């Protein structure tokens, strides 16, 4: 369904000041409802073949023009640093990329707090070893359109010498579009200035486009540093991908251990995230789930924390409040609008099973590709991991970590503010384990054409 239809036709149109027809669709189009799709990871064996592949694929990559009413399936493409090297980008251009992007997500494990269970040494191949060069994704709101778009994408790389497929992962097609732990997700995206749509209820003021798209002023009033040349940087952006395996058995056991009835269990599940499974926020539905509220994009994000400063409704340490503290008074000075990300996460594998409680259930292939877009995706992810996910200091919670994607130490706690005294749950576990990750550059359409038409400097390479 198109965004405009999901909103019942009431779309607050605003001015367009970014070049939507040059920006890739995924940057602005919301994940469809329902959604179907595939991520394909490719390896470039030969620079010239790789560039020809990019050239062949580019006409099939959708732009973000009129993204609010685009309902078709679309194809997107993004390239890792080793991919840009494999495609033969000029040295000067390669050097202009940020350090964290050049070394890759695995090499930044210390900055991201990816150790123990999440250590890149435990990642699945081909993640984190520089083999993934190009990621192609198809998103669709219908099974048929997904298959058609996949066919189009496949035609560009299958049987094409010099480009090999490393990994194909279908996603979506989940009952009710729920994530692997059984929640509606991807609610609460940032509003972007100049994107053509004014803020939806609860989105807050629009954030300067330069935070999400290269070449425009960011929140500090100046454009962020951009790769050279201009045609490569402008209208492009960065994408982070983190593949999580969801430990559904551990999660369900935790809920059962700390709740006496199904009702209590669901409330605890809601306290961890800040939303009920339906997506209804605890701020608007503090005592019981409200499925109609959860499903209504005009209402399910329309709140602030003005009346909940201590977290009696939405715990200060809940996933939703950590990732977007909104108007919460934090213990550390931070500008919330600098740390927002566009999320296009996708769920794969077996659907959530509320009765799965065994250790074996932790290993059933089921999880999420957490996909985030930002003009400074690397810096933002390091900030979030260090400060807001694997830390509690900013919310005056000591060492407590994000209950959803945090890496929990032995004996970790989760605090639920209550009257007259808070409840502190001991022994919270890591519910989502990192199994892979990569940083990608998502070129504008003109940048893709520039890459496709690169030719080696004179002389043999």
């Amino acid at each position, binding site marked *: 369904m198109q965004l405009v239809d999901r909103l019942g036709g009431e779309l607050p149109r605003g001015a367009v000041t970014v070049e939507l027809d040059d920006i890739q669709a995924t940057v602005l189009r919301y994940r469809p409802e329902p959604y179907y799709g595939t991520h394909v990871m490719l390896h470039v064996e030969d620079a010239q073949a790789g560039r020809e592949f990019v050239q062949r694929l580019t006409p099939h990559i959708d732009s973000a023009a009129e993204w609010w009413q685009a309902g078709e399936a679309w194809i997107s493409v993004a390239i890792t640093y080793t991919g840009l090297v494999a495609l033969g980008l000029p040295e000067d251009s390669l050097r202009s990329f940020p350090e964290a992007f050049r070394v890759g997500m695995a090499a930044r494990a210390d900055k991201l707090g990816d150790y123990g269970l999440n250590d890149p040494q435990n990642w699945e191949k081909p993640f984190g070893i520089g083999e993934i060069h190009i990621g192609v994704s198809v998103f669709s709101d219908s099974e048929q359109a997904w298959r058609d778009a996949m066919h189009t994408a496949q035609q560009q790389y299958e049987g094409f010498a010099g480009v090999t497929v490393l990994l194909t992962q279908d996603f979506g097609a989940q009952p009710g579009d729920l994530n692997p732990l059984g929640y509606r997700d991807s609610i609460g995206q940032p509003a972007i200035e100049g994107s053509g749509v004014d803020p939806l209820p609860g989105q807050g003021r629009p954030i300067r486009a330069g935070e999400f798209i290269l070449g425009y002023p960011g929140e500090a009033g100046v454009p962020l540093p951009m790769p050279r040349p201009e045609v490569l940087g402008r209208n492009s952006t960065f994408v982070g991908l983190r593949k999580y395996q969801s430990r559904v058995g551990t999660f369900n056991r935790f809920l059962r251990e700390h709740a006496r009835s199904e009702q209590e269990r669901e409330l605890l599940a809601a306290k961890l995230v800040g939303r009920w499974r339906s997506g209804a926020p605890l701020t608007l539905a503090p005592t019981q789930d409200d499925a109609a509220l959860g499903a209504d994009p005009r209402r399910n994000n329309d709140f602030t924390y003005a009346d909940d400063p201590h977290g009696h409704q939405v715990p200060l340490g809940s996933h939703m409040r950590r990732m977007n503290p909104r108007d919460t008074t934090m213990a550390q000075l931070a500008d919330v609008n600098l740390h927002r990300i566009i999320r296009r996460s996708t769920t794969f594998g077996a659907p959530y099973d509320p009765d799965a409680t065994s250790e074996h259930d932790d290993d059933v292939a089921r999880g999420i590709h957490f996909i985030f877009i930002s003009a400074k995706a690397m810096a933002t992810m390091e*900030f979030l991991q260090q400060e807001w996910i694997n830390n509690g*200091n900013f919310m005056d919670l000591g060492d407590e970590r994000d209950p959803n994607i945090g890496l929990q130490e032995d004996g970790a706690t989760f605090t639920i503010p209550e009257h007259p005294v808070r409840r502190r749950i001991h022994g919270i576990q890591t519910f989502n384990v990192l199994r892979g990750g990569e940083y990608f550059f998502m070129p504008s359409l003109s940048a893709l054409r520039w890459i496709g038409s690169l030719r080696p400097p004179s002389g043999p390479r």
Partner: protein
Amino acid sequence: MTTQAERATAPEVDQTVERKIQQLRELYADAPELGRVALENGLSDLERELAAATRADSAGRVGARQGRVSEFTLILPFADRGAARLRGLLQLLQGNFQLADRVGTVHDMRFVFLDNDTKLLFATAYDGEWDPYIEDFATKIPNALDLLLCNCKGFPGIRSPQVKDWLASHQIAAESWYVGSPDLTVAETRRLERVGHALDEFLDKISD
């Protein structure tokens, strides 16, 4: 975060301590008499310190950390008349730094004027790392920081994308760093103060 216990290398301790003491004796071989005597007389205390697990860690690009608390030391050349302006500003502020209160991670700050008012030594103890927050300072408290740092030579402005590199280039890592309560952040300290007051109030009431 790795805990201190995990970083300890317990099995090799004895051998390592002996080696360290040997190194100290060599280092102090040319020390004044009283230094050499102090080394020999203080060996039993030193052995315990040398045998303990390391408490040192690094903070961001430059600087040392112990537990949650990091050190940040800058030596910045003053701009023309910068020393006079900054001295005037600091005197008028009379130790009130509301911006530091708002930042919420600053334990202390000292401003020391060196070499006949040609350089500023700025030293602070703070929680975590500074460079993830520079952009936040640039949008939240830009005026306060520009007002202070404009007095230093070459300051590009807190909003400049070059400001992190500029700061790092003037930062000097402490050779050593000790924190009395390494696990207490400013936020934690304030919380414990509140809890302590509440507990006293409670105890006063029940003992009346």
